[in-house]
């Protein structure tokens, strides 16, 4: 009797391990026509785990106060063995995560997987997306470089466009009238504990909803969608392919390719996400020219610049985000096949083109 079998037997006697393994691995069936987009969830879990691990390692040497923060990051990059690797993995990884999040969201939108009965999955996922962006925003300040300082100033300034409570909101975000020690303190607390905790909880909810409702059937092919059930029903796929080992292999392959992307960024284009202003310590009295937010916020930045009224710019963004968050309730029809939803698909590609276009404009303006 080999060791593995003995361990499983021991656990089986006490926890019913075999049953759990069967239900979640070998007898967990997925639709036959499942496509590669369904691997993005596993990719994101891996990338988040990597951020968490590299983040904890960085915490050992990082010092969260304005006098020594920049120097501590310099030390990590130059003096600590492989500090450059851990930091680069964390910085480049953040960007790859946003890319994967956008791809995941786009594929869910395109396949209409947010529709009934998966509205809660969509809403929890959208919250995860926002929490991830907040993590990117708070993390950006921590190196306390010129880029960190002034990009955070620009970003927190936008909250001032909210009517009535705008100024108070900015003061709350910054812990004072200007970005400073108080801002670093609260951004550090948020980035290291507050937001990861919230993200973990909401992510757990998201994964629970995914498993509880069952994997959706990709909406391609001639058969019309089944009528959404009147009572709760976990979506089964009889005759489907087992999650383990079939789809686990596919998950592994796509995870590997995303990690390749990450390592190419870390080893061969490390300067891509570190512009020159990120190498200068923060100077509250001197704003470098051409401060811009990171690529995933360029759309927001440019939208604010387009509209003459800051409030209008902010309101448009708020409306777009709210619309996206509540999409399952606005687009509630049961049809999921893209071929039969010309209006939605048109709006999808228009929205995508707008997002890319405004971001590119923001980059060059």
């Amino acid at each position, binding site marked *: 009797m080999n060791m593995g079998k003995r361990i499983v037997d021991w656990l089986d006697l006490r926890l019913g391990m075999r049953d759990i393994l069967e239900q979640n691995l070998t007898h967990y069936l997925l639709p036959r026509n499942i496509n590669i987009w369904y691997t993005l969830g596993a990719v994101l879990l891996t990338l988040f785990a990597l951020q968490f691990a590299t983040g904890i*390692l960085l915490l050992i040497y990082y010092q969260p106060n304005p006098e020594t923060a920049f120097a501590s990051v310099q030390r990590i990059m130059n003096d600590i*063995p492989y500090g450059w*690797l*851990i930091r680069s993995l964390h910085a480049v990884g953040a960007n790859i995560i946003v890319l994967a999040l956008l791809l995941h969201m786009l594929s869910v939108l395109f396949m209409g997987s947010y529709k009934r009965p998966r509205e809660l999955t969509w809403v929890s996922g959208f919250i995860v997306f926002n929490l991830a962006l907040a993590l990117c925003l708070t993390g950006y300040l921590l190196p306390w470089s010129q880029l960190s300082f002034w990009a955070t100033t620009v970003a927190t300034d936008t909250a001032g466009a909210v009517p009535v409570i705008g100024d108070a909101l900015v003061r709350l975000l910054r812990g004072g009238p200007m970005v400073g020690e108080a801002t670093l303190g609260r951004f550090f607390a948020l980035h290291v504990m507050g937001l990861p905790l919230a993200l973990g909880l909401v992510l757990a909810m998201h994964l629970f909803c995914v498993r509880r409702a069952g994997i959706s059937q990709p909406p391609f092919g001639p058969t019309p969608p089944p009528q959404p059930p009147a009572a709760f029903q976990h979506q089964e796929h009889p005759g489907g392919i087992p999650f383990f080992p079939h789809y686990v292999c596919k998950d592994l392959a796509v995870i590997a390719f995303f990690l390749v992307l990450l390592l190419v960024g870390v080893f061969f284009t490390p300067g891509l996400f570190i512009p020159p202003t990120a190498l200068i310590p923060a100077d509250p009295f001197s704003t470098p020219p051409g401060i811009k937010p990171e690529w995933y916020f360029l759309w927001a930045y440019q939208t604010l610049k387009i509209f003459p009224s800051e409030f209008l710019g902010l309101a448009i963004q708020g409306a777009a985000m709210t619309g996206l968050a509540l999409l399952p309730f606005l687009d509630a029809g049961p049809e999921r096949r893209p071929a039969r939803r010309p209006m939605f698909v048109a709006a999808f590609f228009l929205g995508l083109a707008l997002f890319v276009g405004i971001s590119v404009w923001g980059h060059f303006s």
Partner: protein
Amino acid sequence: MEEIPLAPSRRRFFLTGALGGAGALLAVLAGWPVWRFLSPRAGADAAENIAFPRNQVAVGQAHFFNFRGRSAVLLHRTPGEFVAFSAICTHLGCIVQWLPEKGEFLCPCHGGRFSAEGRVVAGPPPQPLDRLPVVIDADQVRIG
């Protein structure tokens, strides 16, 4: 994909083995930097020596300082005679104190006592205090 003339289960066994091997290699490649990151080797202060001006320590007095990351003590026994020891008690690691009236070291944790030569006089310490090399160079006392 071209036909591989192997039974599917044999092919899968080979592939899974290769996958496992590559995965193990990746784990080592990832683990080594993390291990080194967490345990940086001793840097410049491993070999650092330290010097004090002679008149910093009066006769019969002791001066405590940091030597290569550890607590140490410089004792001016008789005029011109300097000795240096590790100030870490050999019992359980507390830092000893110098009592000039008694001319001996006392460890406050369990009452261990060391003479001005570092030898155990009383109490639980099993070994004398570690001696550090001292060189007198004009008006400087060099340790290390």
